[in-house]
């Protein structure tokens, strides 16, 4: 999910940078030094996850997983994604300096929205939780593609067709992202539920019993 250099006009670039700056400021305020190591290492996990390619028919796409990052980090997703993008620019030259702001907004704003929208669903019963997780993955890419298309159209009204094509090309990515996020969250819920927001120390699958025994989770996963 990148907008390349040289496409956008100055007002969009400045607007994106401003929004990214505000979001990052809020995010940095939310992180204290106890959590910063965690945010940094999860940010590198996000960076590595975006290198994972999955097949879609004859071609392939890479995972975005901004929904997952949003769920795990909340507002801290802004600095985490900004840092991952800086490193992508530094290591791979994916996107340059001027689009850093708008690209951060494209991925981090949906992440924060998904955090607030789908956090309450995660520890409900199996079905609503899976649907919520799928919707989280789907919506994070959907919103990202939407913001991306809108910023293209704001920059140049004749970009309508380009924006529409990019949005359409991202449709399969949304579905895959939804599936992967759903399974990923189901997996994390079984193995290490305390990583997710709203975890109250109980496992809904165990009938609400308080348990710290991870072995039960593994055995359940195997069945």
């Amino acid at each position, binding site marked *: 999910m990148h907008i390349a250099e040289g*496409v956008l006009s100055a007002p969009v670039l400045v607007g994106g940078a401003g929004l990214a700056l505000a979001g990052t400021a809020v995010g940095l305020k939310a992180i204290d030094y106890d959590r910063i190591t965690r945010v940094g290492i999860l940010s590198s996990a996000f960076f590595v996850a975006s290198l994972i390619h999955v097949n879609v028919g004859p071609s392939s796409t890479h995972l975005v997983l901004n929904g997952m990052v949003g769920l795990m980090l909340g507002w801290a997703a802004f600095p985490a994604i900004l840092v991952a993008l800086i490193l992508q620019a530094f*290591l791979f030259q994916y996107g340059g300096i001027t689009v850093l702001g708008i690209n951060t907004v494209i991925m981090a704003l949906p992440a924060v929205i998904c955090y607030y929208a789908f956090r309450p669903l995660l520890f409900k019963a199996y079905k609503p939780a899976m649907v919520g997780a799928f919707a989280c993955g789907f919506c994070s890419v959907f919103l990202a593609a939407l913001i991306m298309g809108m910023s293209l159209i704001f920059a140049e009204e004749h970009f309508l067709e380009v924006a529409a094509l990019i949005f359409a090309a991202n449709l399969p990515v949304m579905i895959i992202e939804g599936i992967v996020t759903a399974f990923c969250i189901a997996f994390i819920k079984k193995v290490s539920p305390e990583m997710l927001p709203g975890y109250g120390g109980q496992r809904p699958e165990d009938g609400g019993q308080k348990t710290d025994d991870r072995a039960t989770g593994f055995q359940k996963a195997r069945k």
Partner: protein
Amino acid sequence: MVRERNHRAPEAKAPNHRGRKNDDGRQTCNSQPATRNLAQKTKHKTLNTKPNPMITEPFTVGNSFVHRVDPRLKLVFAVMLSCIVAVADSLSTLFAGLAIALLLIVLARLDGWAVLKRLAVVFGFMAFIWVVLPLTYPGVPLVEVGPLQLSRPGVLLCLKITLKSITILSILIALVATTTLSAIGNALHSLGVPGKLVYLLVMTYRYIFVIENEYQRLIRAARIRGFQPGTNIHSYKTVAFLTGMIFIRASARAENVYRAMLCRGFNGEFHTLGPVAPYTRNKAFTVLTSAAFIIILGLEIWNQSSP
């Protein structure tokens, strides 16, 4: 920076427990994980048939003119030049910008082929734009091929976007990719970027390589068990579990690292050392890039005022 010795914290626990039961506890405790790690290392070597690191930094090391400039200066001028090229509108300005960017790459004595490979990232998107925009952009047709009309403003816009994109990426490669990340973090800190953000950046960079290794290990394990990625739920499920495992291990590692840092006296303050490498070409670089900036700015203003 804190270095994490225990590469596989959760797994290494088991031999430790066994070692504690032994009579001469200390000896066994230390030696067992070591032999275990050694065995794993050799195992990896035989299994890893093609060592193909996903993350490489071909440009950071060098001894050229650009490598010997203070990272702070490089960052400031990279931002200034990128911004002015991004908002420029006339073709002559953009060609001047491209020439300056290429000059910087030559001054950095980078391998042309490697630079081209890095620039290839944007070629896909550029090809897409060149196919779509001339057909959909309204305006005077430049060429008519059967029923299709390639509009003149559309082609012009494509050319501008391509020039801007290549120029900005070249500036990034020449000025930013020729700096080590620790130097960039250092420069950002002394330029007034909040310490937390710099710390986050350096921390993330430090662990990218560790987590990438972890990912390689997981995917190798999946391949050995006969995993072949395809377009089906099973593949997506496998990838999802694998990704979940990456996040879980990253989280566990974060706990361990934070505790280790506390042990070493981390109190929330992040110290950066001043510039260390012999940065001797600062004045020449400042004169050169300022001149380049003024040339681009002047060209743009001149072009805007006399259309």
